[in-house]
Structure formats: structure tokens, C-alpha cells
């Protein structure tokens, strides 16, 4: 991990990072994931060549703007993409490629070995079913021989674990009767009902206000530690990620731009996009300095720019040069040891995130 510095107060390194850092087999290994959607307006390249590993017990943050492909790649893991999606690549989980699995076996994985926490709890819960029965459904789908009493006890226990007051009464309530934060806890309880090995949390706090966000993240972390699950945490909020994740993946326009330990990536970013993201984040611990913004808009996934997808907005793009023609590979940047998909990654590690040299071109 990076040497202690003033930034460590903000970029928290959680204790779980040091735990179970098995250099052995990753729990989840994604290789060259490519997802395309056939739409009436053309082919949407939602993700392209996404590869990452998730190790046991760790939290991998996946960061990016809307449309960066972070959610799509998560949905692909569980096979939850719509019918017009074409998925290629490999998703290795416990020795099997999820992408080739017959439906029945994939269903056995869903909700039991790999579980999902959805963003909008109100939408993710059936409004006509009681909360308790929806949690129970998660259990009975995978465990047929559970008695009614065991089911009830387990449901109430789960609700209590996530911090819902009066859990046995709560189980009989309907989703709309809960506040946003409480509902999200229900969704977390539902996801953890079967002690999954991997949790995929898709923007679990985006719909919540800041105070509730912190509470929910806390609950998520507690539950995760209890079950020892690894987690993929998808968010566009860098603050959320820094508090929770061990490693981070930065995505843009469907591709991985940078990946590595969170300390390394956020203190010594090696990609202009990451630098831009960090620079645009208001920091309480730093005085003054202008917030930079990344000029322009993310590209339409119908029409991704050639070469490096970021080059039209990149203040460091060398034109003419490889940026517009060659797709940069995710390579280890020499200085810090983490990986970046930029032709000039090595040069960038010398630039500090909030430096004035990030004025956008033109």
C-alpha cells in the first residue's frame, strides 16, 4: 500500500484490504467481456474487452459515469441482460464459465453463490408482496426443504441483522411502507440471505441522501464481513468507493481505463480520465485549487471513437499519434505497479490530480 500521506485521511484503506488477500485463485475472473446490443438505431457497444479479477473477501469498486458499461458488465455476470444483447468473453466463477452455463445451472448460481443488490429498492421489490415473503423467496428458491418456522426465523434474523427495527413486524409489511434507507437494507438482506460468495452491488446508495448513504454502506460492510463475501461495488460516486473498496476499476465508454489498488489509483492516477475525475471531486482536506472538469460529453455507444475512446476529451492526447488510431492496452504503469490503458501512462504518473496542467485543450 502507498506510504502514509495527507491523502490517506481521505482515501481510507479499510482493514478488509489486508485480510484474505489471497494471491491464489480469484473468486470471479472476467476475461474480454464484450457486450453488444442490437437496436433499431444500430449496434451499441456497451462493453469492450473488459477483464478483471475479484478475489475472495475483497471489495472491488467499479467507477464510471452513466453509460460507461459498469452496470452492463455486472448484469452480464448473472446473465440478466435483455434478449437483444450479444455477449462474448469468459466469466469464470469457481472453475466454470458462467457464459456457457445451461439456464438451470445459472439459476442455481443466482441469488445463492452470486447475489445482486439493486439500485432502486422500491423498484426492485414487488409492490404487491410482503417484504418477508420476498426474502423468503430468495431462500426457498435454493433450499427446498426449509420448514415454515425456519424460514420465518431466518427472515426475521436477516431483517434484524441489517438493522431494521422490530423485524418480525417489519417482515409483514409492504415495500412502500418503508423509508428509502430501510428499503435498501431489505434489498441487502435479500441478497445476503443465502450467504453468497460474491455480492454485486449496483449503485446501492445512489437513490439515497448522504446520511442514509453512510448508514447503508455501513450495513453492507457489516453484512459482508460476516459472510466473508467478495463484493463488486458499482458506483459513479468516488467518495463512496474510497471509503469501502480495496481495489478499483475505472471504466469509460465500455472499456477499463485504469485498475489497481485504491490507494495507488487515487493518489497516483495513471490515466487522464481518472485524473479528470479526481480533479473534479471537491475535497474537504485540500484548500483552494480549482475544480477541473472534463470537457465534452461521453460518446454515444453507438459510435465509439476509434483508438482510445477518451481521446476526444483528453487534455494529454497526442494528435497525430497513437491516441486516435490504436486502442491502448491495459498495461502495468511502471511507477506505481497498477494498470492503465493509456499510451502515455508512464508520463502521467508524474502529474498530481489537482494540478493546473489539466486545463482542457481548446
Amino acid at each position, binding site marked *: 500500500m502507498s506510504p502514509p500521506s495527507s491523502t490517506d485521511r481521505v482515501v481510507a484503506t479499510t482493514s478488509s484490504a489486508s485480510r484474505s488477500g489471497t494471491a491464489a485463485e480469484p473468486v470471479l475472473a472476467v476475461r474480454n467481456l464484450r457486450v453488444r446490443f442490437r437496436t433499431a438505431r444500430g449496434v451499441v457497444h456497451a462493453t469492450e474487452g473488459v477483464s478483471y479479477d475479484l478475489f475472495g473477501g475483497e471489495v472491488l469498486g467499479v467507477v464510471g*459515469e452513466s453509460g460507461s458499461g459498469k*452496470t452492463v458488465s455486472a448484469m452480464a455476470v448473472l446473465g440478466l441482460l435483455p434478449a437483444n444483447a450479444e455477449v462474448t468473453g469468459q466469466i469464470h466463477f469457481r472453475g466454470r464459465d458462467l457464459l456457457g452455463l445451461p439456464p438451470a445451472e445459472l439459476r442455481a448460481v443466482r441469488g445463492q453463490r452470486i447475489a445482486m443488490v439493486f439500485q432502486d429498492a422500491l423498484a426492485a421489490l414487488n409492490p404487491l408482496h410482503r417484504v418477508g415473503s420476498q426474502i423468503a423467496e430468495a431462500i426457498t428458491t435454493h433450499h427446498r426443504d426449509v420448514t415454515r418456522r425456519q424460514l420465518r426465523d431466518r427472515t426475521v434474523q436477516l431483517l434484524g441483522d441489517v438493522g431494521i427495527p422490530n423485524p418480525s413486524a417489519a417482515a409483514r409489511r409492504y415495500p412502500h411502507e418503508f423509508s428509502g434507507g430501510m428499503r435498501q437494507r431489505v434489498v441487502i438482506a435479500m441478497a445476503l440471505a443465502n450467504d453468497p460468495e460474491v455480492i454485486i452491488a449496483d449503485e446501492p446508495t445512489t437513490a439515497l441522501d448522504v446520511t442514509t448513504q453512510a448508514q447503508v454502506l455501513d450495513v453492507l460492510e457489516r453484512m459482508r464481513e460476516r459472510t466473508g463475501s467478495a463484493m463488486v461495488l458499482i458506483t459513479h460516486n468516488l467518495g463512496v468507493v474510497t471509503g469501502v473498496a480495496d481495489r478499483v476499476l475505472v471504466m469509460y465508454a465500455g472499456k477499463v481505463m485504469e485498475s489497481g489498488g485504491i490507494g495507488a489509483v487515487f493518489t497516483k492516477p495513471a490515466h487522464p480520465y481518472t485524473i479528470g475525475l479526481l480533479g473534479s471531486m471537491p475535497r474537504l482536506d485540500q484548500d483552494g485549487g480549482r475544480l477541473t472538469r472534463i470537457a465534452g460529453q461521453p460518446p454515444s*455507444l453507438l459510435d465509439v471513437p476509434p483508438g482510445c475512446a477518451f481521446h476526444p476529451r483528453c487534455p494529454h492526447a497526442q494528435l497525430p499519434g497513437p491516441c486516435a488510431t490504436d486502442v491502448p492496452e491495459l498495461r502495468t504503469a511502471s511507477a506505481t505497479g497498477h494498470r492503465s490503458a493509456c499510451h502515455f501512462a508512464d508520463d502521467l504518473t508524474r502529474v498530481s490530480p489537482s494540478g493546473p496542467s489539466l486545463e482542457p485543450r481548446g
Partner: protein
Amino acid sequence: MTSRSRSGTAFLRRLLGRPAGVVALVLVVPPALAGLLAGRIAPGNPKAQAYPTFRPPSREFLMGTDNEGRALFAMVVHGLATSMVTVVSVIVIAAVIGVAVGALSGYRGGVVDGVLMRLVDMLEAVPAFFLAIVAFAVLGSDQNTLIVLLAATSWTALARIVRAQVLSVKRREFVQAARSLGSSGVRTVIRHILPNVTPAVIVVLPLLASRVVLIEAGLAFLGLGDPNRLSLGYLIANAQPHLQYYWWMSVFPGLVLTSLVLGFNLLGDAFNDVLDRPSEGQAPEGRAPARRAWPGGAGRQRVVAAAAAGAAAGPLDVAAVLD
């Protein structure tokens, strides 16, 4: 603000671009035209014909003749005339009343709104068909009476729609109150209402038309129509005793009537598609620019849709999403 004629032709083109729209127009336009031009196509009094009876369809008698030697084709065409006259009259009257009441109710609000909406509820309590039967029994069987009655029971749907639109526009105006519209008087509100109201009203009109056609024919079928007018319903009823051997007496009027009803329904669906995109998160075309500026609802929907990558076709246009 888009000019009327431009959006009119664009609308027509978009309508024709859809298979449902084309089918609808094919089903509706020929019968409608035939009805409107009845006097030209089949001149003379159709009931006073004296051809040989019970002739099956042939080159001479396109739709055959009936039990009294009348050519069915002429009868059908005149029946269509009755339908069209009724439909057009009812729609015009109902539209005028409905839009006026709806606008007044939505704009004024308060007591006026309450009273008018109560009136609407009361009028909708009795089914129009039954009311027509009662009117027949009590007031006689004149076509004009029927038109008045149908108009009186049809304007309520339009009033509701217009009222809803006015209310939503009104709310927006207040939201933009900071921009100081000054005295957002009737004129301003109307200028903002009309473009938003017209599509919603237009969508409903074909469905209203379909309903009117059915009621008018139904009444005639039951023998309760205007005896001086020829109606498709009468023709169908007339065919009943002769069903076994002279099928054309029932089939042609029935087909024509079905075509009209089906066509109107499809037209309503097609209008809906073209003028209103309810759940796809795209900004409806042909609307006033004010709509685009409104955040919330549709915008957030698009974000969620893109983030979840669940949209099958269409709005994965990321640039638009990040607005």
C-alpha cells in the same frame, strides 16, 4: 413554436410510416369517403329501388339485392352516409364543448372545477347506449336528437383530458414563476395549452368516433333509429330472417361496419404512437419546447434506463442521458 402546416404534413407522413397507420387509413378512408359522397355514388332513394329480389353478389349488383329488391351497395353507401354525418356532427360538438369545459375547469380550478367535474361524473353515470334508448322512447327517434344525445355523452372524455393538460401546464407556469411571466393571462396560457392539448385530444377522437358509429348502428339495429335515414344497423337487422340462404345481406353491411370500427380503433392506436410516447422516455415530438426544459420524470427515467441497460431499442444514447 412549430407552425401548424409543417407539423400537419409531418404528422401525416409519420402516420403513413407505420403499418398500423396505413391499415387504419385504408380501413377508414374508403368507407368514410363513400359515405360522404353517397349522393354521387348512389344517387336516388335507395329504398325505392325495384330490382329483382335476393340476387347474390354479381357484376351487376356488387353486393347483391335484398328481400325487397333493393341493391345492397346503394343501401350500404347511404348507411355509411348516416354514420359519417352522425360521427362528424357528434365529434365537432363534443370537441367544442369538451375543450371549453376542460379548459375552463382546469384553468379556474376551485369551485368551478368542482362543479364541472361533478357534472362530468353525473353524465357518465348512465351508459350512453341506454340513454339513447330512453331518449328514443321519450323524445322520439330523430337523428338530430341522437346527435345531441351522443354529443352530450361524449364531451366528458375530452373535458377530462383537456383539464389534465391544462393542470399540468398551469403547474409548470408556476414553477417558472420566477421568470416573471407577468400577468400570465388567459392568452399566455392558451398559447401554451393549445400545442399540448391538441395531440391528446386528437388521439382520443378516433376512439370516440368508433363508439358513435357503434351506438348509432346498434340503435338502428334494434329498430330504434331514425326511420327516415338508412343505417348499417338497420341493414344488419333486416338480414336476420334471411340469414340461412341470403348471407350477403348480412355480410356486406357487417364487413363495412367492422372495417369502420376496426379502422377507427387502429387509427386511435396509431395516433397514440405518433403523438405520444408514454413510457419510452423519449421526448414526444411535436410538443412545445417548454416540455424539454422540464427536468424530473422523463429525464430520470432515461438515466435509469441507460444505467440498467435494460432498454431494448432506442435510448442508449449516452450523450442525451447525461443532460
